[in-house]
């Protein structure tokens, strides 16, 4: 709910807010109201949950990773979001928001995308709903992620190149916002992670809460008492989805950021570790910026973590010491992803490989019980893995 105790007037502690132009204010008021109503409405929840089950394939398994556990020296279970329709948790939010947009009478969906995962998820939800969809994507990303561009087109979406700035995710987000400013009444903007102005961060998190809820149910069935929840941090949606129901419990929350080439190389995406408070895409959060307050480009081998901001809820949780953040380098992530493939028969998304890599290098006593959000499958990253594999063989 966007009236969660954590929220005060659109802020999560010191972070969050709505740093938006007046032209969008009505949209945000409308959206917050509509989401709160929908989320409190049994019928809406039922429709959402049925879609999660029948279209998305939920619940996803909670699987003991036998060989991975052995390698890490601690018991680790995977929450298998890689098995969700379109290959990652992203679809939960896309479906949720498209349902909401439909309920609000919106006739056009827009979204931003970096590597294309959220774009594909949104285009998928729109195809299902029969709603026209426009996805903004950095012109550079479009070149790098051609197959996902084509996939969105097959799904009936229009893909528009963002040709400004670094021509990547950050700029695609700007373009989507601009389009929304220009088309405020009929359009809904489906943000792809727990970022942006309130109520997006909490709303996106709520649409992913099902990850944590299923995990709790499975733990109860299996009589597991987890001590650690681990997830990678891009914008923070898969992490929050897992963490949300556990937030008031005594359990360690670990968010693994993309260290990029290395934390001190300047080529990093470790926003909490290396960033500072700032305002980006309408919210106050931790951002990578220079002394002038210009947002810097993020760098990660993983396109889904390659974002110079982070959801404001994470910024808050980290600031108050509730969230432990860790960073993992490109090389560590690649290695971990390939090791997981060989040991568990699961090719993880490069984003996920960051979380995996941390469990490999963390110091465990051995009596912990770790639940790791296996946020997505790595089919999209096959080429990157292969090229890296080739380099090392």
């Amino acid at each position: 709910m966007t009236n969660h105790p954590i929220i005060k007037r659109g802020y999560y502690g010191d972070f969050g807010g709505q740093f938006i132009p007046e032209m969008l204010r009505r949209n945000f008021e409308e959206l917050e109201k509509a989401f709160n109503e929908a989320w409190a409405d049994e019928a809406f929840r039922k429709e959402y949950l049925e879609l999660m089950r029948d279209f998305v394939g939920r619940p996803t398994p909670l699987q003991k990773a036998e060989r991975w556990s052995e390698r890490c020296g601690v018991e680790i279970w995977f929450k298998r979001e890689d098995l969700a329709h379109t290959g990652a948790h992203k679809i939960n939010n896309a479906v949720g928001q498209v349902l909401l947009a439909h309920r609000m009478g919106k006739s056009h969906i827009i979204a931003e995308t970096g590597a294309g995962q959220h774009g594909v998820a949104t285009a998928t939800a729109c195809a299902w709903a029969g709603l026209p969809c426009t996805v903004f994507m950095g012109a550079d990303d479009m070149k790098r992620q051609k197959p996902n561009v084509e996939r969105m087109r097959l799904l009936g979406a229009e893909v528009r190149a963002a040709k400004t700035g670094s021509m990547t995710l950050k700029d695609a987000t700007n373009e989507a916002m601009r389009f929304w400013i220009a088309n405020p009444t009929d359009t809904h903007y489906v943000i792809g992670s727990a970022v942006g102005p309130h109520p997006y961060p909490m709303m996106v998190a709520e649409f992913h809460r099902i990850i944590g809820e299923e995990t709790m149910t499975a733990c109860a069935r299996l009589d597991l008492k987890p001590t650690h929840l681990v997830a990678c941090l891009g914008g923070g949606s898969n992490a929050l989805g897992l963490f949300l129901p556990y937030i008031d419990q005594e359990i360690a929350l670990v968010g693994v950021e993309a260290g990029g080439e290395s934390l001190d190389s300047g080529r990093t995406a470790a926003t909490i570790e290396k960033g500072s408070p700032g305002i980006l895409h309408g919210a106050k959060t931790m951002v990578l910026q220079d002394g002038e307050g210009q947002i810097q480009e993020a760098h990660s081998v993983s396109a889904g973590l390659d974002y110079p901001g982070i959801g404001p809820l994470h910024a808050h949780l980290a600031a108050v010491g509730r969230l432990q953040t860790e960073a993992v380098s490109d090389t560590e992530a690649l290695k971990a992803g390939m090791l997981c493939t060989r040991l568990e028969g699961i090719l993880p998304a490069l984003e996920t490989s960051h979380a995996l890599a941390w469990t490999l290098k963390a110091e465990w006593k051995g009596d912990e019980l770790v639940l790791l959000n296996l946020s997505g499958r790595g089919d999209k990253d096959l080429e990157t893995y292969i090229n890296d594999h080739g380099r090392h063989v």
Partner: protein
Amino acid sequence: MITDDMSDIFKRLMHADDVNLSVFLTAGYPNMTACGHLIELLARHPAVSFVELGMPFSDPLADGPTIQRASEIALKQGTRLDDVLSLSKQFRSICDKPLMLMGYCNPVYRRGVERFVKEARAAGASGLILPDLPYESYSRDFAEALGQEGLSMSFFVSPTSTKEGIERAFETSTAFVYGVANVGLTGDIPSMDRGDFFRGLQNHRARCPIVAGFGIATPEDVNGLTGLVDGAIVGSAFLRALEPKNESMLDTTSIVQRAEDFLEPFNLNLK
């Protein structure tokens, strides 16, 4: 609500019969040298009543393509906040027309609000326009500092604004209310009936002048708003006029010449 301090500066605007022309210029565009000449031109130009000086930002999400690109070019050339301030100083050394610094929150917060406001005042700026600044942040972080330094602040109303939103803009703005003359972004093609929108704002006008912006490109656009607004800002159209289309258009003289050519027809507005 216009403050006492600002009443002096903007009094002229409110009581003019014609629409006052304001020009928007991105600091550091197309380069610092040319920009220095341009700010002087605007300071001296009789058709120009006041100026918006854009503070370039990496992620200007409320701007259309032209202003985005101008920001990008300015940043690529290394334009810093200090450069913005020195352009303001240069402007103020020539004229006493109002000059608003227009930009996004983050660079300002990064500088420190108090420090920035002091520096802006020292540089002769009249006020700030920060389209992504929420009212709460304004009250908490800006109002006092601005008041102390006698700087003003403008907020926006747009065709999608709620009644409360309009009320709040006129209540809080201390320079003028920025009326979005277009559903869309700066520089976009008009897609609404401007007259209707501004007619609806007239009963607020007594409290605070209205300046129209977004999609205003020609003298006709400006004149079309006569009686409805106190000023009109031309931004993207001006920047587009400066764009060098070939090699020979790169030198400063040629850039300034194009600016003059662009402003020429607006002279007709002058009585």
